[in-house]
């Protein structure tokens, strides 16, 4: 099993590196490729089972798009062929169509998924989110400057139970295209959502592996889901 982490030195905001730390514990025998900012991504020349990219600053977003643009067709091909991607926080926007700031600035994304984002650097949005992925509850934190909209025919990732979704009132959060998983939920998503992590590992081809510290992680998850539900009532 080979996992490529794209630009971990610069795409690591909001505790999202916890996802990789945890996956490393779950898959101790996996091969890890940490792609440097000036390096050619490994997925260009070899098979990888998961491509992960975490949140970044707004300037780095534009730099990442520039660096990945030469491989746009390859990325599109990988998504079409079912390669697993996980993009968290504003990394999702790198793969989308466009980010447009309210001041008129912005940038074009890779355009491989149907997502358009509106940005307001004076309006930070912080939320709790609880949604459904198939039959399981998924929880997470949102902390972002953007709200997003899916193109016609583009599928979301989670069904919103409460929280903002892609924008206020959206019934979906994130984006799913074949095995491309993109979500605005930041932080240690895979630690906080062991049931989702199990499903992701299966899709990646890892099979029915036990999670690292499964008992403790499940206890933490149950307590947190209950806490989120109580917080909603406050």
């Amino acid at each position, binding site marked *: 099993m080979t996992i490529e982490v794209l630009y971990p*030195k610069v795409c690591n905001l*909001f*505790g*999202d590196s*916890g996802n990789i730390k945890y996956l490393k514990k779950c898959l101790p025998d996996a091969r890890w490729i940490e792609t440097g900012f000036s390096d050619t991504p490994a997925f260009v020349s070899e098979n990888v089972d998961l491509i992960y990219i975490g949140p970044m600053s707004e300037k780095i977003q534009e*730099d990442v798009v520039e660096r990945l643009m030469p491989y746009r067709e390859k990325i599109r091909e990988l998504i079409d062929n079912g390669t697993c991607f996980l993009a968290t926080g504003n990394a999702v926007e790198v793969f989308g169509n466009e980010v447009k700031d309210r001041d008129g600035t912005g940038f074009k994304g890779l355009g491989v998924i149907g997502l358009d984002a509106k940005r307001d650097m004076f309006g930070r949005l912080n939320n709790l989110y609880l949604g459904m992925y198939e039959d399981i509850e998924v929880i997470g934190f949102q902390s972002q400057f953007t709200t997003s909209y899916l193109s016609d025919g583009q599928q979301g990732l989670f069904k919103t139970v409460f929280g903002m979704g892609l924008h206020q009132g959206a019934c979906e959060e994130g984006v799913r295209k074949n095995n491309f998983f993109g979500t605005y939920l*930041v932080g240690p998503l895979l630690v906080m959502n062991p049931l989702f992590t199990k499903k992701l590992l299966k899709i990646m081809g890892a099979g029915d592996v036990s999670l*690292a510290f499964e008992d403790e992680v499940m206890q933490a998850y149950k307590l947190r889901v209950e806490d989120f539900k109580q*917080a909603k009532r406050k």
Partner: protein
Amino acid sequence: MGNLRFYCTVLITKIIIKLMKMLGRNATDMPGNIAIKLCPDVLRRLTPPKHIIATTGTNGKTSVNNIVCGILEHNGVDFIDNRLGGNIASGLTSILIAKCDLKGVCHQKVASFEIDERSAIRVYPYLKPDYLLCTNLQRDSMKRNANPEFIFNILDKYIPKETKLVLNGDDMLSGRLAEGNDRVYFRIAHMDGEVLRDNIVKDLTVCPKCGSDIDWEFVRFHHIGQGKCPKCGFGSPECKYILKSVDEENITIQTDGVEEKYPVLGTRTIDLYNMTAAVALCREFGLTYEQVNDGMKHASIPKSRYQEKVAGGVQIISMLAKGMNPIACSSSLDVVGRDKSNKAVFVILDDKNETKYSSENTAWIYDSDFEFLNEDSIKQILVGGKRAMDYTVRLLVAGIPEEKIVHSLSDTDIADMVNTEDIQKVYILYDMYNVEQRDKIIETVSRKCEEAARRESK
């Protein structure tokens, strides 16, 4: 009409401040908030002291401002300050109104303010510091400060053109602020035998100008150190103030080729940065070596964040490990990890304030170096509070053996679970909203240590 509104606002706010002080309250932000509501441009209309020196940055600004104020005080400078709190526009408005006459004019010669970096947009158009020190720019609360680049852009845009900057030469991120402004830098030289830390978070790893990997001469912690871009030449600047050495009594700072000794106020790396920064700021402001040196002897770093006592021969140390701020938390974890004494460590970092209204966002704990607690000298880690399971998982991910971790969802029961056998120290890492819980733990641990000592002496 505008003037009348302003004068009435000054008068009403002064009365509110007086009343609050009579009730024993600090009157930091609230009166200023009311003043801004009554007269939205009140900060523009107030006449501040003629000279303003200010300190901003992610970490260390309170300590630096405290040292600077201590030095000013000892030298008889007529000044106002915000040491009691209030580092955003409302707090600064409160302090200016408290100290001004009924026409809104402050007659003191100097103001020494700590200014929140996020508030630059609301403060600097009206309060223009003659000298502004930036301690560093690092990752902070994601909810408020997003990322360091976001804060950099705010400061960069709003720092007044005429302000002279005093910047950290070991921080290539804040070192680029307001590039057109006059500036000096301070730094700490790499010392023999110095222990360097490789943290999870490094907010500058690639050149901000061309995106190439930085070649580091050394990294002291996070992204603080000396480096250079091999491609475009961007790198650490020449520094005017360089801390060259430290011993038990003094720090030695080299300035323009001359070595000057100042008293030590603290020995942690962050203390050394804060002292060097304060010296640089005061010297740039025009104080002589003798004035700064004498003043430093009477200055101090706030102790409210660090307390220690001895009970039954065991040293009990409580340290603030600011929640939501992974850098400040890692700094406390670093102190505990470096201490080679056998010890137990309490982790009580739940943010009680956030829990009141929501479910606490704990994503930041994966940016904090809990790996530093993976030391043989740490015999037990006790995690208490609502988020105990989240911290337990974090500690396991950090590689801490399961048998060392004790957890309880109860705020108070956790103290009874401490094993005081064969330990010399107990550390209590607490969040600023957990002072009550900290005190209960200190009480219980003290009692247990004293009982154990009595049993042993029998």
